[in-house]
């Protein structure tokens, strides 16, 4: 090699890199590995989109059926494929799960980043990692054996709130079986807790220490610093955390399906059974035949799910871009 180089040099030429070096095989291989993810997403989008539009293309069901409230795939004349119960079910169950989980998770992130001494962090952080690892069927099973019987036993009768003069202000049917919207939301709220916590924690940690000390030096209390400085400064990160939690909750299938009661009607009350996109797919996919309209409706549901998740990826990007811009 060295001799060859000196020969080139004496000839006034620069050594050309060898063929292997010019191809740079390692670079190509690692690039292919990374680019495979683009191929996977493209294929997945194409396949699910193709199957998802069959309900409209092949079966001739009108696109407006997506917002129709009636789901009756087995009706003798004219089965109906209204997807509204599933879409609303997914939105409502996810929303209540976030209402429970977001304040808790953000509080936990603040605890870890601002309040907890090191020994407490050393206990809570590994505990959260174990939370992430608990499989969704195990959460579902816990829901069935612990949460659902608890709800049914404790709140069996209707819940009525009445005032002396005004009379009844609020009433809600009781949990007959315990399988309900609330049970689904509670199970989901525990499942998304680690996601929201860890992303918000990173956002709070990213706020420079000087801002905290500056605020405290002005004589504010720790809570005032958190409320007026940390939360506004980390807002986009916290929003990202909530959107990621929402995505995970909306896409979770088995745990929700196990506790939600699976009633394909519009969600009526938090104590009643409902259904979601994921749980209906899980339940029906095995009972249907490839190519029949009923199964095509399930593919349309999975296309809706896919669109929800891609939208949230874009949403997270928009939120973060605004943070970088400001």
């Amino acid at each position, binding site marked *: 090699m060295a001799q060859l180089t000196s020969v080139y040099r004496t000839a006034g030429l620069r050594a050309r890199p060898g063929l292997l*070096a010019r191809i*740079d095989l*390692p*670079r190509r291989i*690692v690039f292919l*590995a*990374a*680019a*495979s*993810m*683009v191929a*996977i*997403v493209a*294929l*997945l989008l194409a*396949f699910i989109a193709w199957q998802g539009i069959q309900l409209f293309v092949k079966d001739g069901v009108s696109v407006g059926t997506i917002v129709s409230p009636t789901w009756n795939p087995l009706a003798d004349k004219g089965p109906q494929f209204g997807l509204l119960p599933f879409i609303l079910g997914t939105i409502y169950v996810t929303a209540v799960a976030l209402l429970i989980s977001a304040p*808790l998770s953000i*509080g*936990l992130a603040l*605890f870890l980043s601002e*309040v907890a001494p090191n020994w407490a962090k050393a*206990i*809570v952080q*590994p*505990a*959260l*990692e*174990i*939370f992430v*690892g608990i*499989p*969704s*069927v*195990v959460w*579902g*099973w816990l829901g069935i*054996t612990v949460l659902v019987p608890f709800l049914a036993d404790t709140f069996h009768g209707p819940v009525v709130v009445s005032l002396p003069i005004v009379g009844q202000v609020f009433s809600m049917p009781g949990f007959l079986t315990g399988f309900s919207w609330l049970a689904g939301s509670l199970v989901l709220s*525990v499942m998304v807790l680690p996601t929201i916590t860890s992303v918000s924690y990173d956002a709070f940690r990213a706020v420079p220490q000087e801002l905290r000390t500056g605020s405290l030096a002005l004589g504010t*209390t*720790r*809570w*005032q610093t*958190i409320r007026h400085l940390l939360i506004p400064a980390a807002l986009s990160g916290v929003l990202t955390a909530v959107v*990621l939690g929402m995505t995970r909750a*909306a*896409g979770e*299938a*088995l745990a929700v399906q*196990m506790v939600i009661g699976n009633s394909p009607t519009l969600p009526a009350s938090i104590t009643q059974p409902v259904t979601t996109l994921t749980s209906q*797919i*899980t339940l029906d*996919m*095995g009972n249907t035949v*490839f190519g029949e309209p009923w199964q095509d409706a399930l*593919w349309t549901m*999975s296309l809706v*799910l*896919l669109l929800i*998740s891609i939208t949230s*990826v874009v949403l997270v990007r928009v939120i973060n871009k605004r943070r970088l811009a400001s």
Partner: protein
Amino acid sequence: MTTTSNPAMGRSAGPKPSLRRKASRGSILADRAATVALWGTGILVILILGAIILHFALAAWGVVSPSFILSDPSRATLGGVMPILWNSIYILVLTMLIAVPVGILAGIYMAEYAGDNGITGAIRFAEESISSVPSIVVGLFGLILFVDDFHWGFSALGGSLALTFFNLPLMTRLSEQALRAVPQEERNASLALGATKWQTIQHVVLPLAIPGLITGIILTAGRVFGEAAVLLFTSGVGTPPHYNFLNFDLTNPASPWSPFRPATTLSVYIWNLNSEGLGAFKNQIVDGSAAILISMVLIFNLGARLIGRLLTRRLTAA
């Protein structure tokens, strides 16, 4: 530091009492309440986790035994989970054999080669998209691709490939983080000695990143082991037959070593037992299986920490 900038410092620390704005009583109370509430969230998480572990420890008492782990399933008696546990481990190994090399290579690209350009942007977008696609949709994708189009039917290989699709972004991201944590000076020193970029990666960066890579592998494995929704429509649901482990014919679907056979895993089995709801011992079998799953999760987590710490100590001491 030795000279005092403020001549008043010697006499009284801090500003004059009249200038100090005392926090109002209300704000101090609010601060106390917030501190209590934030501690409460931390304590709540520990209580929930403790309750879950205790619950399964009690539920599995009298169910999980060597015979439960080592015998074939049965509905009439308290059947075991041996073939199902075998399938879980088989699919885990098969998935990791594909996902770990591809994930680490992709991580190398993202950490060492990727420029700030459109291609990198597209890869990052794909990475984020797969992470956010619901697992059930990835399972359905596997159903079209492997079960229908490739005519594999329900197979362990189809399940493993679908799981690879689903977990590749996680493996890539964890590898990228592990590689980025290697100090730039190490690379510079190697390049200055005349090593090529790939030699630097191979002999300097990768060895230093091993603790992080191992942690990433174990965390990914934990997720693969518990996943059910991806496998429901790819590797199949149902009670496996009795396995003859001396049948090494990989093309024979009856062989437990064959990748082209339906393979129900532990998590799928739990879901299946629950939705069919048959058998007098259903609850005990599910409790026992769930306890095994939770124990594996604990082992994976503690293992990741322990091995990461041991390797870091050894590599930094050497």
